[in-house]
């Protein structure tokens, strides 16, 4: 059962439903009665993508297809990967990314849809020893789109993996990252931001499995849900037997800014080794009224004060992006969405 199989066979029975524990808050079978016809190939011209000006290599997939990015040993590059959906069809994409020993890649990934499409993207990312990857994902989906992105990340000892996923949600959206972490002084940072309004939904799901000694994982996910939006965070850190001296931290913090918005979270720890230090924190609540009062009392109009506080709230995650130019793009993108 998988979304990819459902798209391929057009059998809704293949879609995950809320009866599947892993999808309890992102029910696709209940939502999609009939899968749309396969997307047609796209012939028109595309507007510029959000990271076009920053990248050296450009990879664009419109309505499905395969892409491959290889970075040779010791090389360094900046790649934009655009996953574009045009129209209201169904399609799946596959992306393979390989970093050889000591290679460095800044991956600027964007999801762009313009209608009620149903799409799935499968990414396989491999980092050899000493490789470093920063993956910045900007998901700008249409409010009627159903979008699922599933990444498998394989780290090697001494590699560095950094990820920041920023999304405004979709009708149903799931961005999933499963990382296998060998320890050996490799480090993983897996952050995320969701800014949801209207009836949008966004699901961040991450699973990090530590299989060796001396690994670190650090996660910070922050989100804002307004109107009738629904934010979902499912994070799981597994420390296998023998993976001693693992240091793993996970934080998820969400603001609910209306009476009808919803935030669901499941921060899980599954630990089979004793010499570890693992922690998670989770908070969900309304905006701090005292901070708001303080700002207003200093002459800042309420709407602006709210936007400012929200920006500061999610700013903590954006500040953790290593690549400064991308940080700027993301910060502007977020500010635009908060000032409505």
């Amino acid at each position: 059962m998988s979304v990819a199989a459902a798209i391929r066979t057009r059998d809704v029975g293949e879609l995950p439903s809320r009866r599947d524990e892993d999808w309890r808050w992102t029910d696709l079978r209940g939502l999609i009665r009939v899968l749309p016809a396969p997307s047609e190939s796209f012939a028109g011209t595309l507007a510029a993508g959000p990271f076009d000006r920053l990248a050296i290599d450009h990879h664009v997939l419109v309505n499905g297809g395969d892409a491959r990015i290889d970075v040779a040993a010791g090389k360094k590059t900046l790649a934009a990967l655009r996953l574009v959906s045009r129209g209201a069809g169904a399609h799946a994409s596959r992306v393979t990314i390989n970093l050889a020993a000591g290679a460095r890649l800044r991956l600027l990934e964007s999801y762009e849809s313009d209608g009620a499409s149903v799409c799935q993207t499968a990414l396989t990312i491999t980092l050899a020893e000493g490789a470093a990857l920063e993956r910045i994902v900007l998901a700008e989906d249409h409010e009627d789109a159903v979008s699922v992105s599933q990444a498998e990340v394989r780290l090697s000892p001494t590699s560095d993996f950094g990820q920041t996923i920023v999304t405004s949600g979709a009708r149903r959206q799931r961005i999933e990252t499963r990382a296998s972490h060998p320890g050996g002084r490799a480090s993983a940072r897996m952050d995320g931001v969701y800014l949801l309004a209207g009836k949008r939904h966004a699901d961040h799901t991450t699973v990090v499995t530590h299989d060796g000694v001396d690994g670190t994982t650090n996660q910070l996910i922050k989100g804002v849900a307004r109107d009738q939006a629904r934010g979902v965070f499912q994070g799981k850190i597994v420390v296998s037997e023998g993976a001693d001296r693992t240091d793993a931290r996970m934080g998820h913090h969400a603001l609910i800014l209306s009476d009808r918005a919803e935030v669901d979270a499941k921060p899980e720890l599954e630990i089979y080794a004793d010499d570890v230090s693992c922690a998670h924190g989770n908070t969900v609540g309304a905006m701090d009224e005292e901070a708001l009062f303080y700002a207003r009392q200093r002459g800042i109009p309420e709407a602006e004060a709210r936007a400012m506080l929200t920006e500061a709230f999610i700013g903590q995650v954006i500040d953790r992006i290593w690549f400064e130019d991308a940080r700027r793009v993301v910060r502007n993108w977020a500010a635009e969405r908060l000032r409505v």
Partner: protein
Amino acid sequence: MAAVKQTVDQVASLEKYKHGFVSDIEQDFAPKGLNADIVRFISAKKNEPEWMLAWRLDAFERWLAMDEPDWAKVNFPRIDYQDSYYYAAPKEKVGIGSLDEVDPEILEVYKKLGIPLREQEVLAGVVGAPRYAVDAVFDSVSVVTTFKKELAQVGVIFCSMSEAIREHPELVKQYLGTVVPVSDNYFACLNAAVFSDGSFVYVPPGVRCPMELSTYFRINAENSGQFERTLIIADKASYVSYLEGCTAPMRDENQLHAAVVELVTMDDAEIKYSTVQNWYPGDPVTGKGGIYNFVTKRADCRGDRSKVSWTQVETGSSITWKYPSCILRGEGSSGEFYSIAITNGRQQADTGTKMIHLGANTRSRIISKGISAGRSSNTYRGLVSAHPKAKGARNFTQCDSLLIGKHCAAHTVPYIEARNGQAKFEHEATTTRLSEDQLFYAMQRGLSQEEAVQLLVNGFVKEVLQELPMEFAVEAQKLVAISLEGSVG
């Protein structure tokens, strides 16, 4: 890492389970197996009215149609429900009226366990010592309930469930199954069909129960399951504190304990429910035997400003699978859950709580401390949810896990569902092992390694122990030390 090395070495030499003796008592059994006739047999044995039998048979029908759940992080061979006795009771001596007529063998059992069944014994200690009333459940039946008369003077009803069904059918009918519906889950449904006894408490409006009430559960018979059902109702502005303790003999086969506990609080009422669970945990090396503790406990805070507090110390059972929960329905009602779960040897525990916020300004607090040692596995699983009407709901959750040894496991699986903008939920969790620095510090000051570990572990669980009533806190503290004896330095 001498401490860790020793830990592993010493797991093998675990302290023996102290309550593992078997008593030879003449007993009545229902025929082995489970079918509608067994349900009728149990009902007839207890002289139940027709409506109760109908209720049981309906539950049995529904149970047949249900599937056994498998989502918990526990592994065990499939239970053969036909290979067990569903009713085992000490043979009744003619007309038990007072304690003197109870089989002396049974009295001996309770004496051995240190449970005071004679009211004067309770008072025999220090002058002014707190008193508590006991309902003693032996296998399937309640053998004796103490202090009934004194409690009746203030209007508190404290008796066995079977007696309540006969003497207070209107209360039982009104509340039974309203908190945990018959078909709530597989084990609760089985319990509804075959439950044999348990305690019933009703505290009338405005009454503060003058003493602690307690039930002591003992499984003695071989191949039998224990299915007790407890119902506690705290009427308006009343208060009651209830304690529960349990032990079982050491046996090679697994025995099922599937209880249901229902609590109801009306406006301004409060129930404090404490459990010290010390069922036989099975053989620490082979994992053979031990109790399967699959229990459904739920409180319904119906009244405004009502409060329920669950405190549990879970040290026994080969498998524990329970989630004492609170449905916070009344405005401003609050729920608390304090838990210490200790697993050692081959034990498995999947436990936690559910705090379901339905009413405005409801509050809940969860403090869970899990300790795993040996080859055991310990999971905290919890749910905190706020419904759209639960404006101003607050929750604070803290779950900490302590790992002792290389082969144990600790998991944290919290679910948080916030469905309105005015709820405020905070959750934090940590998983660590005993700090070498702290151990070193304590030992450097002259404590032996064992004392140092006990000191640290006691500090780790202190927040929960503080919530237990005095006489239980002392027992629980000892139990914590015994459960970990041998596993830690």
